[in-house]
């Protein structure tokens, strides 16, 4: 059997940017996996994702479980303009060598029948908004049946992602 887990694209930031775009994503895979190793600009840089350029409607929602080092809690975002992964921990920023690990599974991204559901895990080590780091598990939905052909990744609060942040998108092809 042929290998079915393929890298589509990758980049490492050479300068701070507000967002990164993966465009012209082929519909030949079943699922997408994104691994993002991100350093934020300052307090409260939470990862946001949006699809097919839809970053200003209210078509996104998410449910999140998070642990701050002292508290386990859950929160929700409804009718948001972008898909919010992570809630208040933010990506690390205080140390130039510190980056958060974020993995997103975007299931059945290319069908044109279902709303799109994504699963995310994030680990923001010491230096995030809380100073103690945070671990997040999240599920998000984009209320659109369109096949996903482009993905933008940024952070909230009009902040930027810093030099050295890296992003890789993989495609998984089912039999």
């Amino acid at each position, binding site marked *: 059997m042929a290998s079915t887990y393929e890298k589509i694209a990758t980049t490492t930031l050479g300068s701070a940017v507000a967002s990164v775009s993966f465009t012209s994503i082929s519909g030949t895979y079943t699922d997408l996996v994104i691994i993002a190793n991100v350093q934020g600009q300052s307090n409260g840089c939470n990862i946001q994702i949006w699809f097919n350029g839809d970053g200003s409607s209210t078509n996104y929602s998410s449910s999140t479980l998070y642990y701050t080092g002292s508290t386990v809690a859950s929160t929700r975002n409804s009718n948001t303009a972008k898909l919010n992964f992570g809630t208040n921990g933010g990506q690390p920023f205080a140390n130039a060598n510190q980056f958060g690990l974020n993995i997103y599974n975007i299931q059945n991204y290319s069908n044109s029948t279902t709303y799109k559901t994504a699963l995310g895990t994030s680990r923001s080590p010491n230096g995030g908004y809380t100073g103690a780091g945070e671990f997040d598990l999240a599920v998000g939905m984009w209320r659109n049946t369109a096949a996903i052909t482009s993905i933008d990744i940024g952070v909230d609060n009009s902040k930027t992602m810093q030099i050295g942040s890296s992003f890789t998108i993989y495609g998984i092809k089912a*039999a």
Partner: protein
Amino acid sequence: MPILGIIASSKLTAVPSSYESIATVTVGSGGSASISFTSIPSTYTHLQVRGIARSNRSSATQDWYELTFNSTSTGYSAHDLGGDGSSAFAAATTNATYIELSKCATSTSGTNVFSAIVIDVLDYGNTNKYKTVRSLGGLDMNGSGTIAFDSGNWRDTSAINTLTIDAGNGTGFLQYTQFALYGIKGA
């Protein structure tokens, strides 16, 4: 804003060359009582199941999955850690007839809403170990939903050759439900 497209640099993470698709089940218009992968080859080290789902449960907006191996209904247990958007929760099942995994969308979850889940089955072919499973799954319905991280155990040393997923309260899965089974080879 960098536009990467499909021609971006390729100096980063290595792609697993040993991750292979074994089989896929897509539920048609008539629905399906359960999802089964049979005659799973023993040539891999681990298994991964990835899917989207919607059960035919009509009494609630969420259901759960029931995972069993080799058509056996004894020796299962599970732990569930999750969040429902307002509170965190944890639960456990012991001496169960299946591994309970969270959460599955239902016929009343809302139009076009499907849950997603990724299940890892470790050392499935090893005949000296009980089998351990973990999963990340959930659904969101724009105002309600659940994200959950689960673990499960099957107290049996048999090599797994059949993997079955049933709807918890529902009697089956609805159209467009899809599960794909992958094998991951060791070195």
